[in-house]
């Protein structure tokens, strides 16, 4: 009972503050929380990264295994993205098969990685039509403090950028070699709070939100994926404004994912 009452009171408060141009944690509308990317967190993975955005914490691990290419893309490897919103990370997640929320995170992250041609899938083909690498991107949310989409893609990208193809281990080549990352897509998420549109929402802001929008950009100036979520609406002008903001934040976050000082 008390949870729902507090949520209601908090939502009203967050919306009141937004009307005065303020946020609960004192940030401005266009201010992102502190971000850190820690590559190589898990040695059993072929690549991994632990990402923190404020008190949100997401771990991604890459596994590469030999498999079969899809019949319609015989010359390409296979990329699979899976996000687990495990009940360890939040009181709102329950055990069981992936819920629509987890599937949305997986798919939005997957779209950005794929559309940006982050990795060249043709280079993951071993024998056309018969043998190729399957690249699994697994995303494990550890602490849910909001904005899981941005954190998940950043973790996935951090993991991919530091991944090794275990070719020697599987007897496919003489030596392991780095997985080449060609592009760096970054997702940037905003929520509407009344007339304000704020970047990098916290858990409480997402619960108060009247619409959420995510824009993925890459380093070449392309927009590679978008997703509007939650109940609420944005005008075309809102979208254009948000895209400009996404590019600005993207440049900074991209440097973190690549391991270059921001």
């Amino acid at each position, binding site marked *: 009972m008390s949870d729902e009452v507090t949520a209601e009171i908090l939502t009203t408060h967050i919306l009141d503050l937004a009307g005065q141009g303020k946020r609960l944690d004192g940030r401005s509308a266009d201010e992102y929380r502190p971000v850190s990317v820690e590559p190589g*967190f*898990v*040695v*059993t*993975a*072929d690549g*991994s990264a632990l990402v923190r955005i404020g*008190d949100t*914490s997401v*771990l991604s*691990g*890459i*596994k590469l*295994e030999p498999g079969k290419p899809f019949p319609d893309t015989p010359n390409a490897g296979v990329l699979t993205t*899976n996000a*687990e919103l*495990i*009940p*360890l*990370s*939040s*009181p709102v997640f*329950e*055990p069981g*098969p992936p819920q629509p929320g987890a599937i949305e995170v997986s798919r939005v992250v997957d779209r950005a990685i794929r559309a940006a041609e982050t990795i060249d899938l043709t280079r993951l083909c071993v024998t056309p039509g018969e043998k190729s690498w399957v690249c*699994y991107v*697994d995303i*494990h949310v*550890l*602490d*849910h*403090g909001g904005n899981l989409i941005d954190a998940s893609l950043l973790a996935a990208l951090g993991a991919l950028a530091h991944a090794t193809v*275990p070719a020697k*281990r*599987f*007897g496919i080549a003489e030596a392991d070699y780095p997985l080449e990352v060609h592009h760096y897509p970054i997702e940037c998420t905003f929520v509407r709070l009344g007339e304000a549109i704020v970047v990098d929402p916290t*858990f409480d802001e997402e619960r108060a939100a009247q619409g959420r929008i995510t824009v993925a950009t890459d380093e070449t100036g392309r927009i590679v994926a978008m997703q509007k979520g939650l109940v609420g609406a944005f005008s075309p002008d809102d979208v254009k404004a948000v895209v400009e903001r996404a590019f600005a934040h993207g440049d900074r976050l991209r440097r973190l994912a690549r391991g270059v000082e921001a």
Partner: protein
Amino acid sequence: MGSVGAKEVPVLLSPEGLRIDGRRVNELRPIRITAGPLKHADGSAFVEWGQNKVMAAVYGPREVHPRHLQQNTKAVIQCKYNMAAFSVDERKRPGLDRRSQEISKVIAEAFDSVVFAEEFPRTSIDVYIEVLQANAGTRCAGLVAASVALADAGIPMADLLPAVAVGKAGGAIILDLKKEEDNFGEADLPMALVPQSGRLVLLQMEGHMTREELSTALDLGVQGCRQVYEVMKQALRDRYAVAAEPGAVA
């Protein structure tokens, strides 16, 4: 990263009595425990134990889901042990498997033996264990993490539950098996101890041992648990000593 093809049996015990990683038979791997690393759980703990990395979180006492598990006289303790897909050499398919379900059950029962569940009737105490990086002994590392997380959540208990696996490899009874010793050794025996009473609340065994060996193994395990117990208590002291300082952020 281990090899996938034909497995060569490594030398598990040198003539000098040293193990594959240079430890003596009665030596634990290095253990580091952090109490309360997660901000959204009621209690949490992160355990790095040799090459294992395990996170545990506790929620509750809270409403019981599913409702039909509710008990009128006590809290139900529900445990979910899960391995991340990337935590092992060969990717583990996400989702429930029989091994995880069995481990979850015996861990929940171990905690039910020490938690004062009758103080919270009609509620659930939910314990989540996530193995992020595995190298043998994950159920013990998970149990230790969960025990510290329960304490961090302020759940009243008779005692903390240290745990360790003992086993047999290269003909010797050894403490705290690592992966090669688990894979190629002769026996594996995970256990959890209630230090105050000296009783075991988790005990499993796989492999073969004589009764004399078992007796040695049990004694060695109890000794190992008592060492782990000290690390657990220190983690809680570290966490709350910091929180008690003026101006510190808990």
